[in-house]
């Protein structure tokens, strides 16, 4: 009794804050006792910690206000830093590429053989300065400031407020009644969109930014020094936390937001509509991350489209640690993670730190958020809250495929024939689409059938490819055992990362898997000692003395021919693998396994009451999904001849969920469409070869498409086509005066 009361007290937000504070205090005390250098390393993480804390506060605000776990919060901070940068250095406000109706005309004209034809485009920048250079080159060092820092900051934050309101009104308000998946997908869409807009306008290279806060070193006891801007930033985030605490504790608006987080109808009693609260929280949270995005730039000495964007992962860990509720725990956790990361970086550079292949194990600081998330999920488990919301829109319908065998065979044969007749560019696109479809298929099982969101599929694919590379090198394990072994290892790693999160409901699996993907990317795939500087090399597949990798001319296989490259037979091999996996997944949907998966997706309580093991079903789906992703990773490894951290990391994992969702996440046909949409797939070829749209717009279009799809057509492209064909069929029957046929297949087929 005493123990349970003790535990109850320590699992309240205040108890958790105390635990975190005690742990940090003890850790800090030990470090200070050991070495002044380690303390120095610790305090140098304050700046990054303050930003992580601010991002985590923003995530908490959005979650409380609208039930959205905002994966794009880092991208928003990064976007704001570029608004400020553009204004400060050039006096120009950059504009996103606005869809230009004239581009369609251009595209059609290009299609008919006039690629140089150009019509006027929308401007990329608006000049708002009262002077300054207009010939400024973004790649160069800062010459003159076109606008004062306060002016630039006010305009940038005003734009952040407008953007926050637009995000709410145009994206997340329409998704208020949508399932968690649609909200996650929309925030991923926003992530991609914001990042790509900045890349298009400013390029991928880092930009130097001028100081905003005073940067003189402040001396602390024992010779420890810290730049004053880091202290200022920390003070600001603590001040903001006190402000938020006061607002949420003492104002009607704050109490109503907390009430809405419990039960959206609750806020109405206090006279606030949930929509209004969500809108205010979106504006507030976007301005907050904007402010810190701007202020962190000079501390990091430069801004780029990627670094701050990925700080969403530690921020998610901090927010999760605070159960998406407590501001004080959030900020302590954020600061703690920032400081601990800095300290980890310091100690890994020490001579005594264990080495792998002569170098310290990289990415350990990236692994920290993942470790925190897993520990939190394991300790808290089901006590983690899920926000009250009114979900009236269901996940996309998961149909049983009709005539799967003949249609899969026909699709495979047609694609295989095309491999031999199209140009090399198109042949490569077919191979890319096929491999992409395999990865998307892995998400059909896990997300489409069971409703669990994984943001680590490409990282699991990478683990498989990495294993394939290692077992072939070290043990000469031949094809097809190598790829199968890789897939099995992917299952093991996937289960290690996924099982703690599978025990809980809601968006936690997405958060945990995203952090796991980052860890795999940094620690395993990005480790030069294990993967080399260009990634782990993968030897081409070979069986019965015949090697059929993409770079083996086909003439060497069967003799004769023209030595086509990439080898079409490799494409055929990929197609056959995809076809077998498609048939397997179709059979899963038709079988008791598929029914149990969909039962769990629809209603976990009722599934348990019907004797279905909810966690067992989720784990099975996770294992099947990881296996399929592993096979995709092996194919991808063969396709590129190597496995690199960039291709198989956290962001590509996010992108693949996006492509699978765009295609139609709950059907095998959706996975095939998703494969066509992946970068370098069929859609890229259509855009670049037929419409002459630069491939740099591919991700921009994907991000926009993702948001639109989440709002208007959660069934995806394949589901949309299916619905259209059903409605046309019904209309045809109505015209003939016939009863429409029952759309659902007989179960006893």
């Amino acid at each position, binding site marked *: 009794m005493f123990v349970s009361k003790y535990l109850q007290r320590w699992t309240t937000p205040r108890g958790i804050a105390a635990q975190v504070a005690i742990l940090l205090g003890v850790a800090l005390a030990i470090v200070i006792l050991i070495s002044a250098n380690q303390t120095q390393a610790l305090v140098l993480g304050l700046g990054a910690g303050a930003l992580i804390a601010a991002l985590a506060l923003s995530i908490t605000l959005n979650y409380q206000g609208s039930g959205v776990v905002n994966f794009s919060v880092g991208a928003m901070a990064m976007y704001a830093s570029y608004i400020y940068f553009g204004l400060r250095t050039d006096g120009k406000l950059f504009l996103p590429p606005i869809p230009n109706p004239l581009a369609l005309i251009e595209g059609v004209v290009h299609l008919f053989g006039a690629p140089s034809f150009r019509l006027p485009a929308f401007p990329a920048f608006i000049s708002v300065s009262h002077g300054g250079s207009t010939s400024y080159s973004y790649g160069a060092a800062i010459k003159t400031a076109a606008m004062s820092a306060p002016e630039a900051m006010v305009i940038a934050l005003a734009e952040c407020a407008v953007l926050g309101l637009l995000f709410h009104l145009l994206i997340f308000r329409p998704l208020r009644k949508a399932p968690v998946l649609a909200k996650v997908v929309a925030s991923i869409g926003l992530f991609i969109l914001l990042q790509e807009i900045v890349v298009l306008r400013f390029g991928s290279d880092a930009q130097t930014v001028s100081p905003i806060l005073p940067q003189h070193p402040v001396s602390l006891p024992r010779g420890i020094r810290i730049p004053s801007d880091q202290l200022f930033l920390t003070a600001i985030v603590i001040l903001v936390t006190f402000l938020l605490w006061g607002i949420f504790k003492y104002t009607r608006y704050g109490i109503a937001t907390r009430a809405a987080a419990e039960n959206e109808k609750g806020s109405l009693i206090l006279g606030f509509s949930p929509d209004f609260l969500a809108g205010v929280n979106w504006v507030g949270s976007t301005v907050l991350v904007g402010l810190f995005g701007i202020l962190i730039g000079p501390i990091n000495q430069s801004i780029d489209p990627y670094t701050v964007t990925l700080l969403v992962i530690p921020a998610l860990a901090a927010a999760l640690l605070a159960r998406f509720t407590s501001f004080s725990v959030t900020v302590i956790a954020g600061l703690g993670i920032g400081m601990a990361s800095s300290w980890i970086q310091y100690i890994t550079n020490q001579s005594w730190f264990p080495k792998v292949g002569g170098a310290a194990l990289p990415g350990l600081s990236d692994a920290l958020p993942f470790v925190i998330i897993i520990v939190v999920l394991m300790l808290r488990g089901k006590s983690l809250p899920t926000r009250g919301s009114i979900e009236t829109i269901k996940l996309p319908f998961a149909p049983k495929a009709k005539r799967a065998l003949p249609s899969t065979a026909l699709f495979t044969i047609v694609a295989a024939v095309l491999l031999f007749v199209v140009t090399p560019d198109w042949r490569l696109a077919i191979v890319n689409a096929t491999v992409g479809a395999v990865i998307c298929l892995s998400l059909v099982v896990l997300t489409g059938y069971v409703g669990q969101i994984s943001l680590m599929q490409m990282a699991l694919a990478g683990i498989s490819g990495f294993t394939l590379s290692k077992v072939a090198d070290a043990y000469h394990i031949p094809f097809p055992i190598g790829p199968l072994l890789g897939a099995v290892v992917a299952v093991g790693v996937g289960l290690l990362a996924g099982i703690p999160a599978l025990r809980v409901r809601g968006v936690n699996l997405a958060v945990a898997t995203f952090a796991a993907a980052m860890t795999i990317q940094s620690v395993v795939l990005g480790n030069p000692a294990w993967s080399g500087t260009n990634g782990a090399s993968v030897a081409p597949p070979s069986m019965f003395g015949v090697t059929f990798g993409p770079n083996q001319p086909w003439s060497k296989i069967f003799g004769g021919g023209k030595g086509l490259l990439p080898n079409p037979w490799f494409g055929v091999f990929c197609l056959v693998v995809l076809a077998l996996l498609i048939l397997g997944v179709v*059979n899963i949907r038709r079988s008791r396994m598929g*029914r149990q998966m969909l*039962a769990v997706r*629809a209603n976990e309580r*009722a599934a348990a*009451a019907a004797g*279905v093991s909810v966690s067992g079903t989720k784990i099975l789906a996770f294992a099947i999904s990881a296996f399929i992703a592993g096979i995709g990773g092996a194919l991808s490894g063969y396709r590129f001849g190597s496995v690199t951290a960039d291709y198989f990391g956290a962001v590509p994992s996010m992108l693949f969920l996006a492509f699978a969702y765009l295609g139609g996440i709950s059907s095998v046909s959706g996975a095939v469409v998703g494969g066509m949409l992946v970068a370098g797939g069929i859609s890229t070829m259509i855009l670049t070869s037929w419409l002459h749209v630069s491939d740099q717009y591919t991700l921009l279009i994907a991000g926009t498409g993702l948001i639109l799809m989440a709002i208007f057509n959660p069934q995806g492209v394949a589901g949309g086509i299916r619905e259209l064909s059903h409605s046309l069929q019904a209309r045809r029957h109505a015209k003939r005066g016939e009863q429409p046929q029952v759309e*659902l297949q007989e179960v*006893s087929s």
Partner: protein
Amino acid sequence: MTTMLSTTGLTVTFGVNKAVDALDLVVEEGQLVGLIGPNGAGKTTTVDAISGFVPCHGEVDFLGTSMTSLSATARARAGLGRTWQSSELFDDLTVLENLQVAAEKISTKGFLRDLVNPRNDDVEALEKILASVDLLAAKNQLPTELSHGQRKLVGVARALAASPAVLCMDEPAAGLDSTESLELGGRIRSLVDGGLSVLLIDHDMGLVLTVCDVIYVLDFGRLIAKGTPEEIRSSPVVIEAYLGGGSDA
């Protein structure tokens, strides 16, 4: 007579409130036991505790075995079925598939076989269950295409598909009109006559007093009366706590 289900000192606490307070309840073989009480009396919480959906103190015994430490899934697999007040159907699956989920068990061998050649075993038995509730014609429809009353019946049929030894029915007549309710009562009675033991919770006093063999009455989580329908009808405690003021009974 064999005791199928019993609770001893069943207590469920939410914060400082006792939703169910030391409830002793017995369902004998082939018995239709009613559990009634005013709103908030703890009826649904009792079913949730028996079926493993809320943590509780006390003992839940099923066929002489303690269920207390078992999960909801394990209790269902042991033969302790339940239905839900709001049906809680699997809306993405057809009516027949809803029943299949409850009837089928997954094995490693079956899993591998299904990957290559999925089969639908026991469909005939499930169709018989659907026919017994007049829903055979709707077997390939989605639950969302059915009326409220039909959805309720699918919920009952799904619970029956698992071949339970005891079925806890949580307000099966909620939302049904008086004719549908009467018809449902007849169906439940015929199930019991066929050998099933049932714990029936309902607001419809007419239904409970007409079909049940034994009735338990809860008020504020405590058992205030137990007896045959006649004894309950004439119990002054029940009349004061529940039936007083011109109830539908």
